[in-house]
């Protein structure tokens, strides 16, 4: 099943409420995905790169890891700890730091890397995860959340969505892909680093790889219609953009609502109902095989 909620703010005055608004949406979707959850928030631009990490199991000495990373990349690394998560901030090369962490810190998962993106994940009831990580206090321009009912792979922190394999890019998925093993092999040969067996991580890596090769977000999603076989509703976030697409069969639900202040996407309308102005929003069901995209850069 799974539940998806995405919120893209058009009115900057609402940025302080981003976590609270997205949290209200996700609380309506707990029963669609009660086993685990995760959230991506695009917050204020950091100096340099932010890397979000989560412990696989138990306590971690994040400061010691930061010192090792600092030596490896030759740049200072600052640490902010939030429960079992840590956010590293560095002026060093983010892409290289991410690869070093994946290769050298088996006790943790790297959840995201970029100037603005922060990802948080947990196992268990989504509302309890939001409370524990104080997700609703977070601010920013857009956020994407997911409540998971696992079908393709294990219920673990790393198997929770969103998946991020590219700079400031993330994806959440409701559905299942059938050609992810073959595609993963191709992407590994191209140098992608995978941290799970999850089909959705393959989709995230595919889109990130297309965009690195020059595709726009819309173009990458349109190419995905050809290359990704299976059922999906995807919501994708980039540094300044937000997009929704459903596969050509469109079995997996999606509703989009738009006002002058925000664009919201959710698996069901009841997750949009708590937003201010929802009763007067323009509301529609996204058509199959059609990209809906918004950008702050445009």
């Amino acid at each position, binding site marked *: 099943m799974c539940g998806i909620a995405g919120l893209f703010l058009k009115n900057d005055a609402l940025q302080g409420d981003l976590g609270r608004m997205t949290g209200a949406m996700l609380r309506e979707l707990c029963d669609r995905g009660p086993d685990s959850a995760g959230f991506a928030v695009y917050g204020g631009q950091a100096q340099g790169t932010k890397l979000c990490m989560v412990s696989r199991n138990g306590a971690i000495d994040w400061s010691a890891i930061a010192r090792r990373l600092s030596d490896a990349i030759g740049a200072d690394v600052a640490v902010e700890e939030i429960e079992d998560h840590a956010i590293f901030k560095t002026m060093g090369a983010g892409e290289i730091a991410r690869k070093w962490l994946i290769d050298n810190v088996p006790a943790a998962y790297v959840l995201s890397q970029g100037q603005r993106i922060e990802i948080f994940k947990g196992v268990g009831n989504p509302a309890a995860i939001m409370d524990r990580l104080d997700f609703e206090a977070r601010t920013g321009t857009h956020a994407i959340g997911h409540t998971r009912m696992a079908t393709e792979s294990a219920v673990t922190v790393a198997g929770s969505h969103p998946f991020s394999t590219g700079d400031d890019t993330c994806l959440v998925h409701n559905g299942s892909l059938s050609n992810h093993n073959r595609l993963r092999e191709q992407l590994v040969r191209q140098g992608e680093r995978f941290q799970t067996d999850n089909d959705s991580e393959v989709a995230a890596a595919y889109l990130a790889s297309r965009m690195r090769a020059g595709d726009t977000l819309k173009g990458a999603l349109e190419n995905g219609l050809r290359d990704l076989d299976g059922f999906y509703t995807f919501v994708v976030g980039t540094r300044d953009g937000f997009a929704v697409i459903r596969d050509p069969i469109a079995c997996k639900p999606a509703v989009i609502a738009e006002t002058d202040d925000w664009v919201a996407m959710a698996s*069901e309308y009841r997750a949009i109902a708590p937003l201010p102005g929802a009763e007067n929003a323009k*509301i529609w069901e996204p058509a199959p095989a059609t990209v809906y995209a918004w950008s702050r850069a445009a």
Partner: protein
Amino acid sequence: MGTALRTLRASGNAVLDLAQMSLREVNQFLHDTDNGDFLIRNSRGAHSLACGLDGDMSVTIDGHVGYYCAGMNKRAHVTVNGNAGTGLAENMMSGRVHVKGDASQSAGATGCGGLLVIDGNASARCGIALRGLDIVVKGSVGHMSAFMAQAGSLVVLGDTGDALGDSLYEARLFVRGTVKSLGADCVAKEMRDEHKIALRKLLDDAGVSGADVAEFKRYGSARSLYHFHVDNAGQY
């Protein structure tokens, strides 16, 4: 049943507020009732609202509803002043369901009787496995609509998505706009006087004025798939 509900029931006309009552209380109240006019407030996309009604009552829902609204409806008239989620009026038996906005996928699925009117668009699989219900959609319908529809009618004033009427049995399909593609064994058919009369009645019942039956095309089953023929084995 609480005092407030007893008072409501005695009046025969009531506002049922989902901000004050649980979904189960609202549905149970309607199940225990045989007639009257009711207004449901604060639906906020709730699932299974006004399901299983069986009475000569009128229920208006003032807002958007979630999945399976007005499922299995008998006799009751249900109006939704908003959009409806997946499975609207699923397996409806009789009465009338009217959605003033859009409906999501599988609207009217397996419906046996009555009239379902959707003022906006319906998405994929509208009228799938239809068994006697009449559906009038004033907007457009999505792909695979009327899939395996056995009896009843689907009237579309707008356009249809891909594979209209795939594996169709004896349901009658009328489309005013463009059919993106026809499904297996669904073909355009001649619009004879009896069909024009039937369509006119459906449009009148749905409150559609200003649509000329001559603007519609009729589609139905070529009947080559549902009688098994070994030459068609590759098509199943």
